[in-house]
């Protein structure tokens, strides 16, 4: 359980950490995407760019995990329920996309559509669950 005896600037530091990690993620995503779009011939270059895109996301995930960990048990419960809701909603989204594709309504579902939907659904779930508990 988080104690309120923590330093008053710790919240600001955590926010700075999240913003910094997000900027890093965004920067690595843009760089990796743009350079991969040029279809470099070297497998090493492509592999490096792919790794850059993936590992640029990790600090943001860790910053979010640290934020959740630093909160009190009630806030952690909200995040736990929100994750469960987001998991179910994402599964439903993927099933729907799969069947719409089989039915011929959708030509092709990009993987990036799925992870972006996952993040959006997670965000919505946090809002909905927070509202329910408050």
């Amino acid at each position: 359980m988080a104690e309120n005896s923590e330093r008053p600037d710790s919240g600001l530091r955590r926010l700075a950490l999240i913003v910094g990690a997000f900027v890093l993620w965004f920067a690595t995503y843009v760089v990796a995407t743009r350079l991969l779009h040029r279809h470099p011939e070297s497998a090493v270059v492509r592999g490096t760019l792919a790794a850059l895109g993936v590992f640029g996301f990790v600090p943001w995930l860790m910053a979010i995990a640290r934020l959740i960990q630093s909160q009190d048990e009630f806030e952690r419960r909200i995040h736990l329920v929100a994750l469960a809701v987001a998991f179910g909603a994402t599964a439903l989204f993927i099933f729907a996309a799969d069947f719409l594709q089989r039915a011929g309504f959708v030509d092709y579902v990009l993987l990036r559509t799925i992870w972006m939907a996952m993040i959006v659904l997670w965000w919505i779930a946090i809002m909905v669950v927070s509202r329910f508990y408050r």
Partner: protein
Amino acid sequence: MKNRLRVLRAEENWTQAELGMRVGVSRQAIHAIETGKYDPGLPLGMKIARVFQRRVEEIFELGDND
């Protein structure tokens, strides 16, 4: 679970935020416990009991559906 948190807090003349600060949680957490939307875990339940200088079962009791 049912609880007497709101009554005990009123007796002490504490706000939700004040009680939250004493036990290390947010005002929203105290509100959720008081309205029965959230049942606290054992450590938080014991901290709440400690600040009111009562036993846990004097504050929390099982509801009909528990």
